[in-house]
């Protein structure tokens, strides 16, 4: 019972995430219908033999859109996570290691960025590079960067006191070497854990941005966009909300469980070291 709980996390996490990834890959090569070009005469079709998950307001096949949307949603979330993790880690590790004034100044910037509303950030970025997936990735990525930086910085602070970092300095190693060979690898674990939870947030935030009209530009389908569009036609076409909603929850469930499992796997206490 005790062990199996941990396994449930891992098994369900891997399974769900696997399904989503497969769906995304499948969506790239094949969809039953064109996901952006619908049959205008067949709009709001309920699930049927031809359209398993029904059609939307432009007669587009919901299944095809979900499949195509998987790729877009996963790509956008992944891009966001990579963006935030890489930039956040770089900033956090560097300032955490250097400390002093650099740290203080960068922290003030990060704090400002945190107080900055995501919407304005998204608007600004969209204005500069035009509405696009990249814009969403940058806006969300920038919005998440401070949190990642904070975590990285906190980890570095605690690592800096660890003897092996001091030992590296005592050996006469340069700061760059110490950071890249000793500090960075040891930050990875908490950052991986945080990144998995970020992935879920990114998926959700994209839908919130769509809700405010700033998401991935239509007609490219994303689950978040589909869900936020579907809310208007809830009485006449419930399936437009149910299926993308279910997919988001499904993916998030998978990601969160996988994240929990990864955390357990990376937890040294679970390894029986010591």
């Amino acid at each position, binding site marked *: 019972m005790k062990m199996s709980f941990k396994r449930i996390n891992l098994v369900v996490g891997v399974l769900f995430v696997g399904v989503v990834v497969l769906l995304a890959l499948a969506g790239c090569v094949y969809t039953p219908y064109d996901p952006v070009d619908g049959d205008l005469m067949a709009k709001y079709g309920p699930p049927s033999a031809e359209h398993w998950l029904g059609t939307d307001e432009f007669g587009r096949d919901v299944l095809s859109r979900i499949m195509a949307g998987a790729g877009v949603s996963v790509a956008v979330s992944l891009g966001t996570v990579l963006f935030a993790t890489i930039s956040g880690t770089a900033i956090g590790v560097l300032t955490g290691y250097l400390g002093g004034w650099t740290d203080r100044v960068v922290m003030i910037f990060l704090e400002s960025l945190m107080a900055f509303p995501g919407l304005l950030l998204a608007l600004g970025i969209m204005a500069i590079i035009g509405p696009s997936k990249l814009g969403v990735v940058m806006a969300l990525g920038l919005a998440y960067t401070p949190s990642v930086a904070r975590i990285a910085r906190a980890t570095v602070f605690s690592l800096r006191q660890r*003897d092996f970092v001091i030992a590296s300095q005592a*050996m006469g190693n340069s700061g760059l070497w110490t950071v890249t060979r000793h500090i960075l690898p040891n930050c990875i674990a908490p950052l991986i854990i945080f990144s998995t939870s970020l992935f879920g947030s990114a998926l959700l935030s994209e839908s919130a941005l769509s809700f405010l009209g700033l998401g991935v530009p239509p007609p490219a389908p994303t689950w978040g966009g589909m869900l936020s569009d579907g809310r208007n036609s809830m009485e006449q076409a419930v399936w437009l909300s149910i299926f993308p909603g279910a997919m988001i929850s499904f993916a998030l469930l998978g990601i969160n469980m996988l994240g929990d499992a990864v955390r357990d796997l990376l937890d040294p206490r679970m390894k029986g070291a010591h």
Partner: protein
Amino acid sequence: MNQPLLSVRDLTIAFPCPEQGSRAVVKRVGFDLAQGQSLAIVGESGSGKTMIGKALLGLLPDAATVSGGSAVFNGRDLFRNTPADWRALRGTEIGMVFQEPMVSLNPAFRIGDQLTEGLVCRRGIGRAEARALALAMLERVLVRNPKDCMQRYPHEFSGGMRQRIMLAAVMLLKPKLLIADEPTTALDCVVQKEVLDLMLELTVQEGTALIFVSHNLSLVAEYTERVLVMCRGDAVETGPVKQVLSRPAHDYTLKLLDALPKRDPDAVPPPPKPPILEVRGLTVDYEAREGWFGKRQVRAVHPASFSVSPGETLAIVGESGSGKTTLTKAILGLLKPSGGAILFEGKDLLTAGKEELRSARRRIQMVFQDPYSSLDPRMEVGALVAEGLRLDDSLNRFEREARVAKALEDVQLGGAYAKRYIHELSGGQRQRVAIARALVVRPDIIIADEPVSALDVTVQKQVLDILVQLQDTYGFACLLISHDLGVVEQVSDRVIVMLRGHVVEEGTRDEVFDAPCHPYTQRLLQAVPELYGNREEGFRVETRKLPPARGDLRYFQPEVDGNQARKLVPLRPAGTGAAPHRAAVVDQAA
């Protein structure tokens, strides 16, 4: 007295294990304990001592199960207890003092609340009365100013103080049995002695039975009546302390006793050589923040001077927080000293250029106290050792690999070990990796900060042996820091004693150990009894006998003479050694 208070039979404790289903860590252990009696459980690390104690309180980790045996306490089998029964038993019937004083008190609670809550919850005593009892108990454990103490938080106390408070908290409930799990391993010897004396006194006064878990055989010999020796979950020997320790029947017990550090009487001090490292009047200050933007200097090391010669081992001993680590950090350039000079081969490191400093650093290597935290957990052993050579341009790849292999061989970790990670090694092996890492660059000086205090006796012996042997081979100077006098006595050539940042005595090992002068040194040496003897003659516990110190000097005592001028004066005419035996006295001339 014919009915023992606690009677353990065939106790077996197991953990689930993926490969075999379950793994017993305590195997069919049995013993009896009568009221008021004391029993020691000894054995190397991981032998299952703590598990026995926790099992008796029903506090085993979730994964562990008692898979067999019984423990009859006061006529009832403990392992048939319901959760409610356990709660009724804990504290009032069986109390436990834990190993780590630093983490055993709740940091978020006032001492007073932690002391009285047991009384209020378990004995149904009113608050006011509970307070009075707690105050009385604090007085008994010799806490200064008990009233004030009740209002304070644990972090405001030193380790020794906390351990006394713990003891008070447990004894307040007047348990019939006290289990003390390594209650003093984290403390320095002077404090250790104070706490143990107190514990014994309390149990004797209250008639409490005692189970004392320890790996320190000398302490066991001094403080308990009976002993149970554990080896990998088996009870290998049990009986009265005097008998077991002086005439051990089991090989394992003998091995434990053999591993006790001792002075090698045949060792000849190395001939004096010009010093390779000389520290002159080194002082170190820490900055303490105060108020708004204010800063205050706190002196951690007062002017200290000493020197080490090639091939020599200089030991620095002293209470916890006396500035030993700070001193080494300053030498390594990890801290900026506020004054003095550090001469390495005659050149001052403090004024040296960057390049010089780097090359000097490569020739001074450090072995840290805790091998687990001083070695990067994400690097293979081979890579860790090779890292030291990275900055040496004179070697090509093959030479480098050869050097690494040799270094690992030197510490007896040849072959496959190079591919392992740190968490795949035992404590002793880890520390050997740390030594190999220092050795690989063929340094002139190795600084070892408490290199063996995290290891248990048998492993400690291995590591020390290797260190001594390597020093003979390579002839490096060694700066050894330790609070374990046995270790120092075994390996050092000369000794420096520190107290609150001051050097209070210095001399050769024999001078300091046989004829200490400063009162603190004397206290230190007499604090803990030691086991003397050998296989043939048997072992006995003895407190060190010391000749009286020179009484005509006014010794400098930082607690009392804090701000007075001081100086080190030679105690006897200088012998053959480079530095004479000296002690700190108050400089009346100043």
